[in-house]
């Protein structure tokens, strides 16, 4: 009897999620033993048409990472959705939009102009831009096009489960595989990580006093931080309280504050708004000038509170940009 078919695919992402699969180390053998991989562009050579040729729902599970920002990615997402019983958004980009979704603060034109014209590291004097199609030697290839809006996977197709993280940890991935293969699955739409904020597993938690009152905020590069003390107690924005746990507090263990890649808990609709609310409520000042002065340490609230979650935020995108 043949094994369950599994597909991996990457859209707008850095590739880190793919690395994670490899990071399963010897456990990957266990996985490979139990499944048939039908698509894994980073490691194996399959053609899209092979996938297209598969019967609908014939793939047991697809782990798709990356945000959807190009027409090709959208197309593959739609295709894989059709072919898979379970479509799993794998990693922060697929789940929340991730770093690529920060582009939602700019218009497509702004993005293209910067990348093909203004970027200082660029040598493109002709200011050539990628075309949707071109004809050469009688052939007309079509190129993938950049969407106006960067989207999460579930804003394009129906998603069954989410594995959070930038990237997801091997442990979560392994646990997800085990759950999938054992058939003991949570309700549809679940995030396969603990539904409790990061502080729960952060070793610094004990050092946070119960009377924090912020007078200023610092960014990570603006100081040397006590490696044992809660970042918030040191005045550094740490997204831990508003972010799911499950990463093993990897960043805070490495003396960097949490930036929120696991996304919010299930009870939260907008991770950034909640973190903003929590931080601001605890500012010490009572007058507008004092409050503004304290909050001046957060010069880029969108980038701070929605580093991974902009596409998934309630407003999704800078609202005055063209469709």
């Amino acid at each position, binding site marked *: 009897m043949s094994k369950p078919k599994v597909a991996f695919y990457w859209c707008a992402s850095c590739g880190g999620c793919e690395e994670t699969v490899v990071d399963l180390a010897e456990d990957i053998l266990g996985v490979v033993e139990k499944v048939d991989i039908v698509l894994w562009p980073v490691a194996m050579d399959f053609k899209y048409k092979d996938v297209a040729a598969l019967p609908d729902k014939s793939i047991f599970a697809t782990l798709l990472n990356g945000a959807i920002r190009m027409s090709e990615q959208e197309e593959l997402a739609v295709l894989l959705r059709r072919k898979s019983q379970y479509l799993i958004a794998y990693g922060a980009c697929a789940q929340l939009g991730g770093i690529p979704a920060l582009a939602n603060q700019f218009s497509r034109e702004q993005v293209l102009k910067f990348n093909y014209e203004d970027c200082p590291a660029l040598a493109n004097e002709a200011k050539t831009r990628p075309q949707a199609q071109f004809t050469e030697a009688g052939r007309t290839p079509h190129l993938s096009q950049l969407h106006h809006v960067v989207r999460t996977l579930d804003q394009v197709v129906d998603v069954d489960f989410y594995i959070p993280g930038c990237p997801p940890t091997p442990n979560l991935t392994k646990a997800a595989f085990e759950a999938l293969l054992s058939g003991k699955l949570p309700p549809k739409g679940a995030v396969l990580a603990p539904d409790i904020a990061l502080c729960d597993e952060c070793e610094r938690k004990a050092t946070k006093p119960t009377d924090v009152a912020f007078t200023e905020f610092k960014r990570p590069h603006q100081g040397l931080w006590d490696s044992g003390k809660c970042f918030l107690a040191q005045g550094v924005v740490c997204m831990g309280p508003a972010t799911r746990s499950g990463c093993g507090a990897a960043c805070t263990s490495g003396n960097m504050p949490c930036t929120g890649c696991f996304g919010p808990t299930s009870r*939260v609709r907008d991770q950034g708004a909640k973190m903003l609310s929590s931080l601001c*409520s605890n500012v010490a000042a009572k007058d507008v000038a004092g409050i503004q002065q304290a909050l001046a340490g957060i010069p880029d609230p969108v980038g701070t509170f929605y580093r991974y979650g902009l596409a998934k935020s309630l407003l999704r995108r800078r609202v005055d940009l063209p469709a």
Partner: protein
Amino acid sequence: MSAKKEELRIGFYVCHCGHNIASMVDCVAVARSVEKLPGVALARDYKYMCSDPGQVLIQQDIREHKLNRIVVASCSPLLHEHTFRGATEAGGLNPFYFHMVNIREHDSWVHTDRQEATEKAKALAEAAIRRVAHHKALEIKKVPIHPDVLVVGGGIAGIHAAMTLANAGKKVYLVEREPSIGGHMAKFDKTFPTLDCAACILTPKMSEVGSHPNITLWTYSDVTKVDGYVGNYTVQVKRKARYIIEDLCTGCQDCIPNCVFKEPKFTDDFNEGLGKRKPVYIPFPQATPQVVVIDPEVCLNFKRGKNPDGSPIVSDKCKKTCVEACGEKNAIDFTQKDELKEIKVGNIIVCTGFKTFDAGRVPAYGYGTYKNVYTSLEIERLVNASGPTGGEVILREGKNPDGSPKTPKSIGIIHCVGSRDKKTNIWCSRVCCMYSMKLAHLLKEHTDAELYNFYIDMRTPGKGYEEFYNKLLEEGTHFIRGRVGEVTDWAMTPEEEGKLVIRVEDTLAGVVRRIPVDMVVLATGLEPQADAGDVRRLFNMSCGGDGWFLERHPKLAPVNTFTDGVFLAGCCQGPKDIPDTVAQAGAAAAEAMVLIDRGYVEQEPNTAFILDQECSGCKSCIPLCPYTAILFDEERKKAYINEALCKGCGTCVGACPSSSIVQNLFEDSEIFSEIEGVLSYD
């Protein structure tokens, strides 16, 4: 897996409130539109939902139609939420399966376009329908009431409220800022319109207060801190050092004549600065308690400096003849310090009174410039037999040829000084017309002078008041309808020389007049106390835009405040005369007794709680709670809320970064569904 969700059966009722709502909102259309919403089992419109039949309708429908949620669209929930929760409960449902929509105060009464108002009502109704689906059954908690009462302020209001409660067997703490109780009334000579002597009717009450076994009287004391909530207030009172041991002072006042100051030379506030007193003094003969006070600002025993704790430095330079005179009683103690007392009470009655308007703020009337311009309160002391002149009305400036002080031959009383004026106070001070006439009568009696009253409108709405006006007319007092333009000493004619001239339009005759007089009396209005803002914060009350403490409802709850267990009486709530003040004080005492005798209060179950499983222990919420109701369990590394301390503001809920705190009655899901609802219309 969770149990199958019970099917929603919402009953919706829209109230016409007679024409109040129906004239601006198409109630039938609202009911028809709500009817179609998911979960709605029935939707009705009805003339008066708050009436008995309206309430019975809800109860019947709950039984007959198996309703499990109720929404009523009518007036403000602050008015009738309680009523409809009661009806819901009487119908056999948990009262919190009810939600109320305000389409009167927030809709029909404030809009002018029927279609728009109807659309708004529909949207608000839809929001409630969506919201109520998330409602949960909650339990009302009963909290016992501490039977003692704090009365703040010892004027006639405080005295009457304290006496009423004490006579009913309740323990009362009466706290007064001045060395004696009595307030403004103790300064008055006679009271209108009956002209009975203020002291004669007040002082017996004062001494009763002083000796009542159920009243703890603390004069020369300030309330400095109030904690807790209805039924359970903890109050801190500062008893200021009076340098006299109250229990040892017998009130013999032997110390006063023996003070090293032979003559009184310091401003006597009780006599409005018209008299003088010594450093050791008793404010007035009938003062309660009969205990003297030493003023450290002027007593030679004190240096003009402060110890680190804020108390004045004792100098020991004086011969201390007062101590000698006190003798074995040993009641004088120069080392006395302010003392902080903490008491527990269930209810508080605030009777902090008023201050009179500072007449110097109307420079055109010359108070402070011309010596013979007086305030009405100064005249009260001047005509008072126990006042600084023994009741003789003599002018501050000017002597008779024989050198004796001059008595006025003509007096002008100017009404509405600091009242009915947008530049000072816009309100009518309500008592000035009457007391001006009273003073006119008394001055006439004392001096036989020619009296002029300058008024804008005569306001005499009270029992026997108009009759009093008539009496004054009979006495020959001139009433000139016109607000005085200016008081000046510049003469145009020989008879004006050396006089104060009042320039005014006699609006009834339609002519401008100049009237020379010897004395001008300014009928100053009533103002909130200078520290009303602090007092308001102390007791968690509200102030109106004018600065008077705000009653919960101008008609239906005139002595209640927005804080349960805190009541108002007397002029701190707005200008009023003595009968009204006493009536209000009695009402406030009765309101307090309602709570005491019931023994408990019901608490709105809108407290917050932390989802224990979900709390990550980030501690963000802990510093936010002003009542320290949120604690951190060090063992389990999670926060938890002490429900008894939580007052249900929801600030921690709004701030919890992982949404792990829930507020009953205001859950996230309930509010999100309300937002969805109000935006559902086209």
